């Protein structure tokens, strides 16, 4: 496995965190994407803010590149794929064609989100309130109770990293080894700081935070090494070291 890849274990399953914000599950050849928010840009037009109407095609382009590289058998979109109920009607013909092509090429699962309870009728793929595979449960809104194996979106976690006089705000993954939160994948989506209680309260154990960099994902906070699979494999810490770190 490439040294630059960030591979973590969540509820016993090996997952690869992509710098694009996607999760790749190699054992199941499954690509997971959260919060695509198609047509978020145009949703502001009604109120007179004309954001560049290119966010959907930018997002589709990034998805297309991921699919071409990873060749998944299954894609799971974790809800809020469309920014609002009318978003599907605002896609233009070209964008619809691209999206339809993608959903025909792979087994596509649309998990329902709070923004898109009724996806457009023309949409290919399967629509589900949630989706389960092996040890993982894919949902849009994370349960308020600790929930082993849950992979969810909705929260749009971001983390602030201060170093070398820089203060960076990055989209991030958050996990305690039992459940995993994905960053939003959509082009214009903002975020919610992982230090907020709404995020921390989701985790039974101390959470680890993985920030999206340009070329790879970086472990930046919490007991990340307990989840990491590939980094410093030669220098695996002893069990005692791990437990010291895990003690709150």
């Amino acid at each position: 496995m490439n040294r630059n890849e960030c591979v973590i274990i969540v509820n016993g399953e090996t997952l690869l965190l992509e710098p694009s914000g996607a999760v790749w599950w190699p054992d199941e050849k499954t690509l997971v994407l959260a919060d695509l928010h198609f047509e978020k840009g145009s949703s502001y037009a009604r109120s007179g803010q004309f954001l560049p109407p290119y966010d959907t095609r930018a997002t589709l382009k990034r998805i297309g590149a991921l699919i071409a590289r990873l060749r998944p058998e299954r894609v799971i979109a974790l809800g809020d794929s469309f920014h609002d109920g009318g978003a599907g009607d605002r896609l233009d013909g070209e964008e619809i064609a691209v999206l339809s092509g993608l959903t025909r090429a792979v087994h596509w699962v649309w998990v329902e989100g709070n923004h898109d309870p009724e996806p457009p009728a023309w949409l290919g793929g399967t629509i589900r309130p949630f989706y389960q595979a092996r040890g993982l449960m894919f949902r849009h809104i994370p349960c308020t109770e600790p929930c082993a194996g849950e992979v969810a979106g909705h929260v749009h976690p971001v983390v602030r990293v201060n170093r070398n006089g820089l203060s960076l705000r990055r989209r991030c993954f958050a996990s305690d080894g039992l459940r995993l939160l994905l960053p939003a994948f959509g082009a214009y989506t903002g975020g919610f700081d992982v230090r907020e209680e709404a995020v921390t309260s989701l985790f039974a154990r101390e959470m680890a935070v993985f920030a999206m960099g340009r070329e790879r994902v970086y472990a930046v906070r919490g007991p990340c090494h307990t989840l990491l699979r590939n980094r410093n494999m030669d220098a695996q810490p002893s069990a005692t070291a791990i437990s010291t770190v895990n003690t709150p």
Partner: protein
Amino acid sequence: MSSALTPSLLPDRFARWFAARGWSPRPHQLQLVEHAARGASVLLVAPTGGGKTLAGFLPSLIELSTLPLRRSRVLHTLYISPLKALAVDVARNLEMPVAEMALDVKIETRTGDTPAGRRQRQRYSPPDTLLTTPEQLALLLSHSDAPRMFGHLRAVVLDELHAIHNSKRGDLLALALARLAKLAPGHRSVGLSATVADPKPLQRYLVPQSGEEALSELVRAKGGAAPQISILASEEYVPWAGHLARHAMADVMAAIKKAKTTLVFVNTRRQAELTFQDLWRINDDNLAIALHHGSLAPEQRRKVEAAMAAGRLKAVVCTSTLDLGIDWGAVDNVVCIGAPKGAARLVQRIGRANHRLDEPSEAMLVPANRFEVLECEAAREAVIAGELDGDRLKTGSLDVLAQHVLGMACAANFFEDDLYAEVISAAPYRDLGREDFSRVVDFVATGGYALKRYDRYAKLRKTPEGQWRLAHPRLAQNYRLNAGTIVEDPMIDIRLQSKGRPIGAGGRVLGQMEEYFIEQLAPGDTFVFAGEVLAFQGIHEDAAFVVRTNDTEAEVPSYNGGKFPLSTFLAQRVREIVSQPDRWGLLPDPVQEWLRIQEWRSIVPQPGQLLVEMFPRGKRFYLVCYPFEGRLAHQTLGMLVTRRLERLRLQPTGFSANEYALAVWGRRDLSGVNLPALFDEDMLGDDLDAWLAESNLYKRTFKNCAVIAGLIERRSPLKEKTGRQVTFSTDLIYDVLREHEPDHILLRATYQDAATGLLDVARLGDMLKRVRGRIVSRKLDRVSPLAVPALLEISKEMVAGEAAEEALRETEESLIADAMRME
């Protein structure tokens, strides 16, 4: 000429008033009356203390005094000030002559603080004279009743015009003036300005342009006594780097003690906080020394200003917030810590002392390092010679124009050709092309995208007659909530609470700080703000809560704002001093010695040359050059040069820039590099473009433009949207727009801004042109004296684009190292 002119120009009542006060009208005051009588617009250039404001209003008061007592009041004179507080102060000062001459003149102010009822009334029943700000004027002009309100206007008085004409606020005001010229044809304008190097741009600003350059009349008030400027420089010790001048605090304190009232000017808010602390540490007599800067709570600032006016303060440590504004008679001493950065700024600051023309102002410059000694000396010589730096003139910003177009649509339907003709009569927009104007209108209407997706949501629609009209009245409400050109970083209130109280349980507001600074604090971290060491407790709702501590040292806030680049004019003078050893005698010994050893070990560059030195030090190889073009231009140069070195596989790893020099370093010897190619102007093409794609400064510039142009609303009537709650990221919008529509009008506005602003590309371009064929290089075996300050510079940059990745990588490494420690 004054006494001869008096009888004919001044009505009796006015002549008697002057006499009763023991004054005689100043020549420039009478000249303004004379120009006004002919209906001519005029620029008055006068030093502070020249009776400028009265001169500006005198013609209006004379005209108003001749009107019948029983009349229906109409707006006669409009006064615009860049500062709300100044408008209020001037209104107060005007009341005196009006009362003493028993004139029937109604004077009112209109600012953001004016109660809604009075604002409403001012629109249908205006005073004779209204004093307000550019933003308020723009708002008034966006109402459909503007023609009625301004239709009888006879005069516009623009105060502190030098401080505003060459900025985005100046663009907004220029567009408003163009509209006023249409609503009240034939009214005259009066510009009031401090001494400027070139008055032409201001004269142009005052009158409508039409093809040929039109200029207003010009009146120059006689200069006062030449200021006395001393430079505080120790013969024993002058620091190599830094901007705080902590070594000189005892001398500053002594100067404060000697004078009645002292203004201590610094260049940044951070410096203000630290200098204030340093002074109090040695303030054994408990002198009343206060602090004043833009982040303090308005009430706090007002308290300081009031105490100052009442003569209760011995000194105020302040930033440029007190460069302009209200006159304080008692100030008799000005201390400037750090380099003055520009001769005009220095004159302005010196002028804050002793507002009487006949006595010389006194000022002490306190350079904080060796280069600043040179800069202070250059500035002193320039001021004594009466030479000032001119600003690079900006052209009218397209984002401001977009805002104005929407405002004009709120006022009335318009034909595109008519509004275009009006806009290009404003001096900053006189070269605006018809095509570009259409693109701006298109942007306002539907976003201006090649992909026409927003037609059904259009803000402006065409009427059957071909006029543009506002699509919905609600949009006018939005416009009024979002108008203005000042875009602040998201700020957060700092609330002081008593120890032991839970976070969020009340507390006095001390002021505001940038949100990004607060976000990087952990509970318990200490920082200096409002002159105190405070400990951060936490954020609750939208305020940061702090408690007092007993600590004397703290992590210090590093503010973004308030740094000025070295002016081109002053840079030229500094280069001259460096190049002429016979002038070094004026400098303190350590500085002379520094330059002599430089001359012996390397060379001192001639004014037209660019000196490049290359030497190894530690495990690094350095390349240091000395353009003297200011930190912003050097930072941009650093980004571009490291990009090129990277392409040459010379593996640069970082650079640091100060006002005078740029140092680049890497793991490989840089002495073989082809310097003319490295510093070729063509770096401003593709290299610049590639760098802009990822520059954070550039993205911030884009955000400002997007807000001003109305792409992103600051506030909407539905929800109060603060910076904290913006639900999309402007950085991501920038990325998408750049990729899909690189020629979009907003990206052009951004480039236009950055070129003269944050990136100083224009200045960099001039420098590269200047040094072509004049690069002199020296290969040295070790660091040269001139290079030391650049190497000591604290803020270092990693090579372009790598900085963020490096920060993330190091965070990860330290996290893992921490976790793996076996103890």
